[in-house]
């Protein structure tokens, strides 16, 4: 059946089997392979994208269920060569090693800061608690999200001053 999903602002139409999972739709059709596909069992969070601004495990959602919804993937974070503050934070704080978990971590972190610009460390840990990183041990990821929050606060302050 034909399905149209808006991915990073662009409508993408494809004739799919209803059983196609969102993660594969995203990776195959627009070819956005930034969204990773890990455990396949909704446990690791490598596949997290945003649906209407909220984090979603795309391995546990059918593509056909997303018709009429806005999907945002990691590719949308960088705009005109400028990294999103969460991406900058991961860079500054060395929050990745192999990078496999990173797209999912970035999307959850972005959604967290959009909802709560000044989260506590516990709130950051809770937000990413459905996601597994086998490399960095989480400390640096929490520090990176903290960095992004501080960075955004100071940018806002400068803009207001």
């Amino acid at each position: 059946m034909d399905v149209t999903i808006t991915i990073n602002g662009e409508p993408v139409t494809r004739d799919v089997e209803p059983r196609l999972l969102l993660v594969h739709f995203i990776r195959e059709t627009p070819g956005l392979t930034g969204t990773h596909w890990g455990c396949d069992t909704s446990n690791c969070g490598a596949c997290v994208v945003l649906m209407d601004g909220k984090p979603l495990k795309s391995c546990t959602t059918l593509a056909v269920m997303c018709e009429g919804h806005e999907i945002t993937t990691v590719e949308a974070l960088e705009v005109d060569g400028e990294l999103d503050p969460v991406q900058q934070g991961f860079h500054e704080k060395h929050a990745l090693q192999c990078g496999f978990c990173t797209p999912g971590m970035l999307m959850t972190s972005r959604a967290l800061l959009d909802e709560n610009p000044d989260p506590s460390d516990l709130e950051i840990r809770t937000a990413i608690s459905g996601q597994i990183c086998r490399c960095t041990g989480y400390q640096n990821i929490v520090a990176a999200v903290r960095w992004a929050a501080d960075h955004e606060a100071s940018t806002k302050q400068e803009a207001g001053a």
Partner: protein
Amino acid sequence: MQTPAPFEYERATSVEGAIASLERLGSDARIIAGGHSLLPMMKLRLANPEHLIDINDLHELSYIRDEGEEIAIGALTRHVELLDSALLAEWFPVFREAEQVIADPVVRNRGTMGGSLCQADAAEDLSAVAAAVKAKVVIRSTSGARTISMGEFHVGPYMTAVGEGELVTEVRIPKRPGGGSAHEKVERRAGDFAIAAVSAAVWIDGGTIADAGIGLSAVGPITIELTRAEELLRGRRPSEELFAQAGAIASEDCSPSADGRGPADYKRHLAGALTKRALRRATARALHQEA
């Protein structure tokens, strides 16, 4: 790569339409709500429905309402909404406590009240919560609506009283004075299903327990309503000794099996300890003695 077996998909645009499709398609059809229990089962080919009816557009099934005598929760209400509800936190703090430890925030954005109950997985937390607060489930079909208790709702492992052509639309919880409630769960790691979990609610009138509800998760083939302990508690003054007796009943009346989450005797021990703790905290809340 895990892929479900092929199926036909349709999106319901009204409750009536969903029920009509269920009736037309019979046992070949399944509702999909959050999909966070059903899709994993379909990927493992443990469930192979031929038709899926997606109810995610039925916003009329998504609400938490004060209806005077009762609180009504729509079947499509998501975990995150149960977690954030001030109304539920005021009347039944057990919801917020359970929701803080159900899966993880990303899963909680999708999983629903109705899906959790209909999955009828003994390891699932909301069924124990619903049993403890004496919730009733509203089931609709073309011939109207029927309302049943949690005891009638769960008929076996992964089996409910929801028949062909029927849709769960709502959960209703009676508001009674003097109540307090709490959820206790032990899990292997953040976001995991329980090794054991206990929901408890008590209603206190004039210093004695007028009524109590206790639901146990993950320590038997289905969610256990601990009726023998509820009977023991009714009409008694709350005390540590009484809670310990209720805990002993929990250890006796549960029937856990050994698995990757732990041996049976450990789970039995947990059922007792968590029952005691949940009752202690529910009672403190009912008496406004919470620290």
